[in-house]
């Protein structure tokens, strides 16, 4: 559909004829209360009018924090407003992937990840696209209801994949990874630690083999495995490829 600067039609729920996400208006992914707060906010009214994918990029690189709504009056963050705008625009997959791949702007990456989690319907795609960024350890500033919090890109993506509610929105249902692995739709996750993890595993086995009966390792162990090493080895070869 031609790009309409006003995009009022998508806010009107009656005659919506645009892209559908999960069979419904994309804006319905946000709750009514949150939608109202966004549309009434100054940021939305001033900055988010008539954006297209390119100008949205300009706004997104100016972001300085993530978050949902904050304060007594549930004021929405610019992050949330831009995510709402993305839902309104429903840009192509390539554009979103381009946003996600930008190394330089971490908040843009966070925005794209949020959009992917909300909008993409194939679970396997969501996992395969977002999991590589679990190795991005940059800091993110997060605005919570009263004050600020520090989080990291990988923590944020982990939350997106596991939690029910992030940034004032209830995330749509995503099948858990184990379920997808059992159905063979996904490969087990290869952690970014990779070789280091294998080393740790080997250390673990060596230790426990020498100790013999002592199988329970203290909690402080970095690997955190309490299992006997031999079991771990067998299982890890089959299911957790180098995990």
């Amino acid at each position, binding site marked *: 559909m031609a790009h309409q600067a006003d995009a009022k039609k998508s806010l009107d729920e009656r005659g919506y004829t645009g892209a559908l996400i999960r069979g419904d208006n994309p804006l319905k992914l946000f709750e009514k209360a949150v939608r109202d707060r966004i549309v009434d906010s*100054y940021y939305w009214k*001033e900055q988010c009018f008539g954006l297209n994918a390119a100008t949205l990029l300009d706004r997104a690189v100016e972001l300085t924090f993530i978050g949902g709504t904050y304060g007594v009056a549930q004021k929405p963050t610019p992050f949330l407003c831009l995510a709402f705008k993305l839902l309104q625009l429903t840009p192509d997959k390539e554009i979103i992937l381009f946003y996600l791949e930008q190394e330089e702007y971490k908040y843009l990456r966070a925005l794209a990840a949020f959009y992917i989690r909300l909008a993409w319907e194939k679970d396997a795609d969501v996992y395969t696209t977002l999991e590589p960024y679990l190795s991005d350890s940059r800091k993110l500033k997060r605005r919570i209801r009263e004050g600020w919090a520090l989080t990291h890109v990988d923590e944020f993506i982990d939350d997106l994949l596991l939690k029910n509610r992030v940034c004032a929105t209830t995330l749509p249902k995503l099948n858990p990874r184990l379920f997808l692995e059992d159905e063979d739709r996904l490969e087990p996750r290869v*952690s970014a630690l990779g070789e280091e*993890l294998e080393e740790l595993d080997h250390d673990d086995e060596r230790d426990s083999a020498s100790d013999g009966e002592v199988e329970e390792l203290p909690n402080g162990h970095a690997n*955190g495995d309490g299992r006997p090493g031999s079991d771990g080895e067998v299982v890890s070869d089959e299911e957790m490829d180098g*995990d």
Partner: protein
Amino acid sequence: MPPLSSRMTKNRPQPIRYRPGKAEVQDEVSEDEESESSEDEAAREEVAPRAPQPKATSFPSKKLAVDLSKADQQTSAAPKPVPKKQDDDLEGFVTASESSEEEAGGSSDEKGGESSEEEEESSDDEPKKPMLRPTFISKAKRAQQAQPQRSTEDEAAEMERKRKEKADEMLQAQLERDAANRAAGRKAWDDDADINPEDQVDDTDGIDPEAERAAWKLRELKRVRRDRLAIEEKEKEREEIERRRNMTAEEREAEDKVYIDAQNEEREGKGQMGFMQKYHHKGAFFVGDDEQDEEVKKVMNRDLAGARYVDESGDKGVLPEYMRIRDMTKLGKKGRTKYKDLKAEDTGRWGTDLGKKRRDYDGLDDRFRPDERGGGEREQTGANAQPVGERRRREDDGYRDRDDKRARYD
């Protein structure tokens, strides 16, 4: 001889006061008038063809140095007050500040009376003399006012200049503020002007790469561990299911027995529910988290049924029926209904009808159903469904013979 007076009063006829808008008509003037008023008469007669002039006025009624008929052509020696733009509609009135130069003339007007008008007014009389607003200025202040004031024209120009300057200043301040805001990177929509910078969290990367990498490693390892634990849980469940399937029936029963006995043991320690004790269910949610505190676990497993209040009297079964209520606060209140509790008042047939065979008379009205075969139980409730039986004696009613009509308190 009494003076002939048409007015029937001994008062002397006063000169008629000026009433604006009223045509002056005076009766014949008596001879007792003072000579002072004769001048007024003369003045009056002079201007008789015009509208009757007020008696008490500072307007010169005598011969004027200036000819009023040539009013427009006159130019006065005294400085004319420039009517200000906003005083267009009040042009006739001159405020105290403007008319200060005429004050001297004005005051003398009032004092001098009519007789001296002509001498003193000629100097400052103008064709269009604005009406003076009579403001009293004390002697001291009068001395101050005597100084020549700047012309009001200059004053107006001065005011303009001042206003322009102020506007310029304000504009300058606004521009500076905008520049400062832009420099600080604050956006127009962002009214979080009072973000405390100390509260804000620092999100610059690369401050301590080693520490950051270590932190990331820790997080990643935790995630990996969490995944592995989840896999293990699932494995354990599957194993358990397999194991039970492979056991024979007797083994299963043996295991179940053990489990149930353990449960009963737990329950033994707890007390029994009394008669009509208030029932509290601890809730079906938030059960059995492994991460619960010890205290929380204790609280969740406490004995609800066996709990007794300190001052509770015990079994309600010994009380009369009137007092058998759950909530003792409702006892004795006027208008208390016979409602006991939901269970007693329930008229539903919870599951009693399931599995019964269909009968011919199933959909029929109560009136047409056959009698119960064999004098069965009263399945049908309702006051009229039962035959009249013997009158139920209520316990607390007192057992009276039918002869006595009232209770005796002998």
